[in-house]
């Protein structure tokens, strides 16, 4: 974690006996109203911090932006950030704390699907609205949660055809060994077969694996046309590095559902990262006026400490917060059910990532998807797919018809 200006300010205020989210309050003390509490739970430390840092920065930024514009319903927003340190137990602890002690109006948080599944039941039990702003494997059907990131029907469904069109039919899948990787690899398998290709093998790797030597030899022996990676976290970056070191970049290209979601492309050298293709609903390099303006403000505020907003995680957090804020404005209340109802009217926002619309039936979003290639540590859009609905979740989940449903559906594909 780098010491940002915000932290430094906190330090001073903390010493003065103020609360953690002091900057927000101080600035709006003039408003005199009770602050609305918003809780963020993201890993600022531990192995998943490459994803957590941009999400926290974007949430901070969104809250400050809103407060500078006068807050919500005449009240300032008080943001409370918790760092679960990449530890699932702390996730549950902080979620409980957010719901029962802070009585937060909304919780934005969760990065891995493991952490989401850990806190989702808690927030549901304690009637606290939950926004999960990460690209994930889809299928969550629960009226208390809004998933603002892209899902396989939106990203895998675009990535696989790209791979098959440009590189060849048959792929080898390497994926992180937990529900995200397991379910995503099923989706990849489904789309690869639909495209007339074969999945030669699927290898799963726990999050702490760093030695991919044997796997790389196995992949070579299988001779796929391409490798599709759903690898997650800091340790898995070694895969790309070792792949390049083995001189395979020229012979077998890599596509990924996760590469660039954190700062993978910056951690790798151009020789190692160039040519890897990903699909996300946002890249920092997306070229439109709103994004330009956003990045200008973002960098002006954070300066050199601004994290790279690789894939969509940070941006989706920014959008998720603004979707919630818009719903509060329309509902004229922070009451959970009122806000949910407002969101279910299909709120739509023009964002730096393009137009994002809430899908009432699934509580997922319709959004723009980009297939982008990595060149010289930055992404460049290769193909753009505007306004993609969350078809995967929509095929199994209808919260309008079954508002009490509470489960995660999984795609039924045999690997």
């Amino acid at each position, binding site marked *: *974690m780098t*010491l940002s200006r*915000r932290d430094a300010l906190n330090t001073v205020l903390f010493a003065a006996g103020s609360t953690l989210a002091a900057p927000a309050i101080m600035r709006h003390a003039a408003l005199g109203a009770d602050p609305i509490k918003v809780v963020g739970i993201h890993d600022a430390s531990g192995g998943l911090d490459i994803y957590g840092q941009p999400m926290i920065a974007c949430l901070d930024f969104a809250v400050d932006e809103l407060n500078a514009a006068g807050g919500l319903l005449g009240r300032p927003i008080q943001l409370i*950030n918790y760092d679960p340190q990449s530890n699932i137990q702390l996730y549950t602890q*902080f979620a409980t704390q957010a719901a029962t*002690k802070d009585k937060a109006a909304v919780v934005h948080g969760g990065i*891995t699907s493991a952490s989401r599944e850990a806190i989702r039941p808690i927030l549901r039990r304690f009637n606290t609205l939950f926004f999960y702003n990460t690209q994930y494997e889809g299928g969550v059907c629960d009226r208390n949660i809004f998933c603002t990131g892209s899902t396989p029907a939106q990203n895998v469904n675009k990535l696989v055809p790209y791979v098959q069109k440009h590189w060849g039919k048959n792929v080898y899948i390497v994926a992180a060994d937990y*529900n995200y990787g397991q379910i995503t690899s099923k989706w990849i398998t489904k789309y690869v077969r639909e495209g007339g290709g074969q999945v030669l093998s699927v290898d799963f790797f726990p999050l702490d694996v760093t030695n991919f030597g044997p796997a790389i030899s196995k992949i070579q022996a299988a001779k796929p046309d391409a490798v599709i990676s759903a690898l997650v976290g800091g340790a898995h970056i070694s895969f790309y590095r070792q792949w390049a070191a083995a001189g395979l970049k020229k012979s077998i290209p890599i596509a990924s559902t996760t590469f660039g979601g954190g700062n993978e492309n910056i951690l790798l050298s151009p020789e190692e990262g160039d040519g890897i293709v990903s699909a996300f609903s946002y890249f920092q390099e997306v070229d439109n006026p709103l994004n330009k303006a956003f990045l200008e403000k973002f960098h002006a505020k954070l300066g050199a400490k601004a994290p790279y907003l690789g894939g969509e995680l940070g941006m989706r957090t920014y959008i998720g917060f603004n979707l919630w804020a818009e719903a509060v404005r329309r509902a004229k209340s922070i009451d959970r059910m009122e806000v949910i109802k407002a969101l279910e009217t299909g709120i739509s926002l023009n964002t730096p990532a393009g137009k994002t619309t809430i899908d009432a039936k699934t509580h997922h979003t319709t959004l723009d998807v980009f297939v982008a290639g990595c060149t010289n540590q930055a992404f460049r859009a290769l193909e753009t797919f505007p306004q993609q609905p969350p078809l995967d979740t929509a095929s199994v989940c209808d919260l309008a018809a079954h508002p009490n449903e509470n489960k995660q559906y999984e795609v039924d594909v045999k690997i």
Partner: protein
Amino acid sequence: MVGFRTGLQIGVALMAAVLAAVLLPRYLELFTLINATVFVSMGVLALSLGLIWGFGGILCFGQTAFFGLGGYTYAVASINFGDTTWAIPLALALPTAVAAALGYLMFYGRISDVYMGVITLTTTLILFKFANSTAGDQWKIGSSPLGGFNGIPGTPPLNVPFDPGTQLAPDQIFVIAVLCLGLCYAAAKLILRTRFGRVSVAIKENELRAELLGYDVRLHKMALFAVGGFMAGLGGILFANCVFVSPTMFSLSYAGQVIIWVLVGGIGTLAGPVIGCILIQTLTTYAGTLSMIDPNLLLGALFMLAVVAVPKGLLPTATNLLAKLARRGDES
């Protein structure tokens, strides 16, 4: 016969547990209570290691193996049975049996000190790696998927015995956890008064002499190790009730933390490890809410300070200090 001192300690501990169980739910907020339950469940784990290490000389680096096994067995069994009643004895029996088996392997193989540490550490790491790799559909026990890295978020909370419809509320689970901790403490104290407990302490002091007096050292160690496994398993059940089971329960960082709780609290005491556990847990949680200093840096610095400044652990140091003050008081 229980000595006066032991009786007093047990009395005080049980009284404190009952008081905490009765009073705290009235005054604490729900979230504090749930956190407190987590701490108490880990306190049981700390107590188990405090018992076998401090009084049996068994340095187990992998006490979390039994903690996790207890939790997982509870979760899997209660999901399958649809009722938690019979899951509990099963979840106590399995870690006890595994501890006995592992104890048999180590003690009858005459493996000692550092080597024992490695074997126990390895055991918990194997379980960790295994549990971590069960995300696929093929990993299912009955109707309960093992869930890999995610663990089993749907771990059911305790229900009223034989009435699966009536689940206990978090404050009721807190009461049960605190009483369990109190009872474990009392049980440990009583065990140490029995011949078995005294021989165990003697074995810690001098294994050869105990053996030459005709005591089967291996059997005693194995039995004490199994008692430790039982308690750690109980801790795991309680933990599963207030969080849920996941591979983290077996992880290296938990395995190491247990040792630190015991050391910081005071090895050779029973209350010390529990106090150390709750203090450090509180600190870890608090550290997570700070944004000005990295929590790991803070904890690390504190541990180093603790070793250099209070090498005997907090409880013995505090007791000594009190005794000194009392003496000074008498003199003046």
